[in-house]
């Protein structure tokens, strides 16, 4: 059973290179990756994740709005009774913001320079924890 991942870009920045690299890497690791593209609202992302029955959501944000957008996705999942869907994030995120994001329920935060192997391993680990 392949792991299903949703890769989404919440908010208004148009930089999707990172998200696409991660999507292809997860594909090459044997996962089914639903890529939803740019400029998504947290509500759209959560609805897509539910309809696609994904195990985990990856959010990429380079606009600086991660502190409001990432936790919003987690709280909407909870509201819809889908809190078993994990959320990880990445992008241009200052180290000082990471503890707060983790506290809000983001399981991993990957900043520029993160190794792709680590991202794959982290995704596998959190999905296996769930099962």
């Amino acid at each position, binding site marked *: *059973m392949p792991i299903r991942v949703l890769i989404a870009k919440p908010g208004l920045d148009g930089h999707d290179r990172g998200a696409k690299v991660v999507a292809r890497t997860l*594909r090459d690791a*044997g996962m*089914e990756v*639903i890529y939803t593209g740019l400029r998504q609202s947290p509500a759209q992302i959560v*609805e*897509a994740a*539910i309809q696609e029955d994904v195990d985990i959501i990856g959010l990429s944000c380079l606009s600086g709005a991660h502190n409001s957008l990432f936790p919003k996705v987690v709280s909407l999942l909870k509201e819809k*009774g889908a809190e078993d869907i994990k959320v990880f994030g990445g992008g241009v995120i200052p180290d000082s913001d990471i503890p707060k994001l983790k506290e809000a329920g983001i399981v991993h935060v990957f900043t520029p320079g993160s190794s792709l192997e680590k991202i794959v391993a982290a995704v596998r680990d959190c999905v296996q924890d769930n099962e």
Partner: protein
Amino acid sequence: MNSTDFRNLARTISRLEDNHRETVSRIIQLPLDRPQCHIIGITGPPGAGKSTLCNQLLSQLSEKGKVAILMVDPASPFSGGAILGDRIRLNHLAQHPGIYARSLSNRGNPGGVSRWVVTILRLLMDKGFDYLVVETVGAGQSEVKIASIADTTVVVAVPQLGDDIQTAKAGMMEIADIFVVNKADLPGSEKTANMLREVAMDSSGQWKPPVCQTVATSGEGCQQLVEEISSHHTYLVDNNLLEQKRRNAARFELVEMSSWLLHRQLEELLGERQGQLLVSGQVDLYSRLEKAYEAFINSLSEVSD
């Protein structure tokens, strides 16, 4: 439907895809013969605009009833993974309460669709969806399984893909109930439409496939496409042809599933060691397989009794 309903539906589809026996056995007993439902197949080459066209179709069909769409993309032959990117075109409909959208990997199944499509359609029919749209992988000339599944098959072409010999070839050109020339704002659109009209005129059946010209990004021509889709449904119902279509789909479902089981077993049986043996020659495994096959065929009579 609310999020909880969608969640349950989505999970059942995953269990079907994973060949969960109890789920398959339950869903396969749901009826596929609801005549008021319309199964619409959308196929065509990669980049022809199938997903963008589906976005237009969904927004129009959702005014008339509940719509579900299954969007199939190919799995990697190396990793088994997939990028399912059709949803990008549907984003503004993502929160519509009357639309359910699901991306499917073909999981290596040839022919343009996922091997579970018909079974998933049974489930969606049972959940009260009126329009069931299936978008195939970006298809070549011979990926024609959609015609065994859909009531109405829409073949999407674009201008300048070749001369009239391309349209004379067997395969994709023969399965259309409706032709679409998308990107009709590009030069050459009228010529492509004319070539397809000739194909349509030569078609042997009573139904002559209409040719629609659309610009999916702006919505131009899409109203006419929806009208043609609905006239084809009326034609099938009025001529008692819909039942035949659904019988074909149900047969296709079983053949597809069982040939996959057989194929999987064979691959396993002829593993590494046997591969070595086979490549060196000197053995005739084929005759042994043929013998086993005979025994298998004899046991099949129990299935249909």
